[in-house]
C-alpha cells in the first residue's frame, strides 16, 4: 500500500531528537495499550501482518499527528470493529453490550512466560528451490497493491544484489488478508547511489529483507 507509513527516504521531516523515555508504568495509558495488545484475544487470532496493515490504514493526517502508542489504540479499535466484536458506542463508553461468541478465555498472566520463550515465528519449512542465489542481481518490482505489502517504495524499480537467503517465511501480502503462503525471503543489498540520485555517500549500503515475489531477475 502506498501510504504515509512507507517513510523511507521521505523529505520534510526535521532533526532526530534523541529522547529520554520514561520507563513503562502500570498506570500510564501508553503502558496499558502496550500490555493490552500483547494480551487480548483477537478476532481470528494474533496476526502481526494484519495488525501492521490495519495501522497503515489510519487516516494519513491522523497517522502523522498521533503518538506511537496511540496508533496502537486505533489499530486495536479498528480490528475489533471490523470483526463485529465491538461498536463505536462500546468503545466510547467502555461498556459491553455483549460478548463475542466462541472467543474462549482471555490469556492469563501465567501464559506470559511461555510467550517470552516461544515468541512468534514467521519461518516455514523449505518448499522448493529458491529462484535466486547470493550474488544474483535483482530488481525490486513496482508492486504496490491496495493491501498489505512489505516492499518499501524507496527500493521499487531499483537494482540490488542478493546478500543472503533467509529461509522460507510467511508472505505478509497474503497473510495479512487471511491466507497463509510461504516464500523464500532474501536479504537484498542496494547501493545508496542506486537508490538516491542525491546520495551524499553513494557507496554506502542499504539492506532490506524481501520476499521472492517482490523481485525479478535483471
Amino acid at each position, binding site marked *: 500500500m502506498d501510504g504515509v507509513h512507507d517513510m523511507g527516504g521521505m523529505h520534510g521531516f526535521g*532533526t532526530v*531528537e534523541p529522547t529520554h523515555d520514561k520507563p513503562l508504568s502500570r498506570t500510564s495509558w501508553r503502558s496499558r495499550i502496550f500490555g493490552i495488545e*500483547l494480551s487480548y484475544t483477537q*478476532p481470528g487470532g494474533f496476526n502481526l501482518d494484519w495488525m501492521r496493515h490495519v495501522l497503515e490504514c489510519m487516516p494519513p493526517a491522523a497517522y502523522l499527528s498521533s503518538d506511537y502508542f496511540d496508533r496502537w489504540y*486505533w489499530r486495536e479499535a479498528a480490528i475489533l470493529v471490523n*470483526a463485529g466484536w465491538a461498536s463505536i458506542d462500546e468503545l466510547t463508553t467502555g461498556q459491553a453490550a455483549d460478548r*463475542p461468541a466462541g472467543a474462549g478465555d482471555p490469556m492469563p498472566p501465567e501464559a506470559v512466560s511461555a510467550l517470552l520463550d516461544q515468541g512468534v515465528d514467521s519461518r516455514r519449512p523449505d518448499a522448493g528451490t529458491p529462484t535466486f542465489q547470493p550474488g544474483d542481481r535483482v530488481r525490486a518490482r513496482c508492486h504496490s497493491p491496495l493491501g498489505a505489502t512489505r516492499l518499501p517504495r524507496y527500493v521499487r524499480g531499483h537494482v540490488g544484489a542478493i546478500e543472503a537467503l533467509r529461509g522460507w517465511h510467511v508472505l505478509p501480502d497474503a497473510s495479512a488478508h487471511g491466507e497463509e503462503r510461504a516464500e523464500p525471503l532474501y536479504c537484498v543489498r542496494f547501493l545508496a547511489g542506486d537508490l538516491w540520485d542525491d546520495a551524499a555517500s553513494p557507496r*554506502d549500503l542499504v539492506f532490506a529483507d*524481501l520476499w521472492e515475489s517482490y523481485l525479478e531477475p535483471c
Partner: protein
Amino acid sequence: MTVPRDTKKIIAIQEELHSHLPSDPALRVRALESLLVEKGLLDSATVDRWIEVFSEQVGPKNGARVVARAWVDPAFRTRLLGDATSAVVEMGCPKLEANSLVAVENTPRQHNVVVCTLCSCYPWAVLGVPPTWYKSFEYRSRVVREPRVVLGEFGLELDDDVEIRVWDSTAEIRYMVLPERPPGTEHLEEEALAALVTRDAMVGTAKVAAPAAGN
C-alpha cells in the same frame, strides 16, 4: 471464525473511528481496557504482567550482556554472528519476535545501523521496547537516505571512508549491532564491559565509549 480483512473497509472504519471517538488517548485506552475485560477478551492482570516483564526483565541490559560475552569469548562471537537467535537464547534472553535475529558487526571500516522504515520493528528480545526516537518519522524517513547526517545528530561523526550499512527491518528478521570494543578496556571483566554497552550502540546510532580515565 473468518474475519474480513479488506483494505477499503478498514480505511473506512478508521475514518469513522477518528471522527467519532474522543481525542484524549488516556480516556480511550481506559475505556478499551474496561470493554475488553467486560467482553471476556482480556485479563488486566496479564497487562500488568507484561508491563512488569518489560520494566524488569527485558531491556537493553540483555543485549549488553550478549555484546560483552562476544568481546571476551571468540567462540561465542562466532556463534553470535552465525546464528544470533540461538546465541542469545543461550545467554538467557527471551525469544519474543526474535526467532530470526541477525547480529551485524562493526569494524573500523564498516558501521551498521538499524531501522524499520515501514513501522518500528526492533529486536525487543535483546533491547526491550524501542526508544521514541527510533519510532519517530524523522529517524524512519531519513536514516536510509542520509545516514551520515542522522548519525551526526546523535553526535556520531564517521570518517568519509567508513562504509555505512543500513539495515531496514522489512520482514521478521531482527537486527542488533555488535559494536566495536573500545580501546583501553583490555583489563575489564565481562560484567564491567557490559556496563559500557548502551542501547544506542546496539542500534548503531552510537559507538561504545571507552571508560572515563580513573575508572
